[in-house]
């Protein structure tokens, strides 16, 4: 399993910067919003928590198809399925590798982008906390969506369609943490919910993902 994680990270780095690009996309979405909405900083500050979270979600989404599609195209997936590794473990590792290459860097730079959107400085720690807690769930849910659509040629958009509704609870609580943090309210409840979602997702999703993979490999 460590070998798989290492390989996936090596591939992400070699394939022209798997790390940098998720990040770049996040940055770009966030910079595009003011171009659309206009340069009013008060307005921007108010929508900032939601925008950052939606951008994080989209950045995660855009790289989901890397999770299984490449391995499917070159035939690695059936070979992994018949290898001694449990398919659940493969699913977990794949989700983890995705988080390390997109969720983690994105969490780290998020504060900088908070500046661009005039987010209240009080909300910065909450932004960091909510992303750190929530993005792993995005990756793992995404792995499930990727597994569902892995057989289909360019299932990218279909996958988005399947995954986005699953992202809604994470998005709501994540943005809520930041918004409450910005206004100085208690962030206890949404943070707890976020942690609960992530824990639940990591406990259950590997099984669902492995099941979907098994069906698609048939």
């Amino acid at each position: 399993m460590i070998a798989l994680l290492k390989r996936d990270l090596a591939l992400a780095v070699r394939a022209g910067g798997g790390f940098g690009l998720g990040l770049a996309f996040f940055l770009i979405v966030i910079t595009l919003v003011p171009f659309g909405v206009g340069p009013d900083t008060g307005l921007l500050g108010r929508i900032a928590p939601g925008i950052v979270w939606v951008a994080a979600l989209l950045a995660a989404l855009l790289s989901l198809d890397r999770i299984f599609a490449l391995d499917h195209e070159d035939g690695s997936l059936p070979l992994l399925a018949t290898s001694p590794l449990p398919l659940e473990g493969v699913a977990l590792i794949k989700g983890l590798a995705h988080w390390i290459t997109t969720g983690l860097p994105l969490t780290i730079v998020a504060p900088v982008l908070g500046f661009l959107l005039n987010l209240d400085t009080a909300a910065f720690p909450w932004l960091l906390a909510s992303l750190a807690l929530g993005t792993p769930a995005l990756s793992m849910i995404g792995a499930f969506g990727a597994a569902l659509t892995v057989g289909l040629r360019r299932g990218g958009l279909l996958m988005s369609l399947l995954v986005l509704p699953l992202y809604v609870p994470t998005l709501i609580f994540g943005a809520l943490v930041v918004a409450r943090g910005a206004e100085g309210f208690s962030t206890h409840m949404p943070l707890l919910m976020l942690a609960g979602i992530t824990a639940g997702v990591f406990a259950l999703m590997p099984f669902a993902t492995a099941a979907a993979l098994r069906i698609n490999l048939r």
Partner: protein
Amino acid sequence: MSIWEYANPKKFIATTTPILPWLTGAAIATLVVGLIWGFFFTPEAANFGASVKIFFVHVPSAMMAINAWAMMLVASLIWVIRRHHVSALAARAAAPIGMVFTLIALFTGAVWGQPTWGTWWEWDPRLTSFLILFLFYLGYIALWEAIEDPDTAADLTAVLCMVGSVFAILSRYAVKFWGQGLHQDSTIAKVGERDPLHASYYLPALICMAAFVLIFVALVLIRTQTEIRARRIRALEARMRA
């Protein structure tokens, strides 16, 4: 003798190597003089207070960030038209330098904005177009990194640089039209006009600009040499394996 002879990689390294130490020395010297002068020996400005000292890093870096892209455009054109490898590699070498200059301009602008405009970031046209410029640098560098074959990478990045330049100008215009600016207009070019830059800032600013130009040239030369060597290593290793 034609100037294009310097486009031969070996000739390029042979000619630039003896120049480099002098150039580097001059760059460091002007930078040190310029920054010390600007930091210690300039008066406070009436409207900016002591923050005017930021001027001496902000303006030269902003200027060079744009000039670096212009240089990349010229180098790309030379590569596309005359197919001199050194030219393509020089464009590649210049990109990270331009990106760092853009970052410096953005950062110094942001911390300057905090006390003077009361905000770190404002969606002002000039600031915004710099953000876009930063994105262009990022994309350009990423494209170079992503492509295996060096000539293919050179060609594609050259196309991107040309198309990108058109769109960068278009964005500059669009952004101007989209929001009204806080950022002041260029005054450097208006010497002798109604509201010229105060004389006590003029000389150190000039020295700093010279310093940034020298730094840019020196770094481009060093990095171009490195890229040439990397390419040579690649060529030799490929042949040894074959």
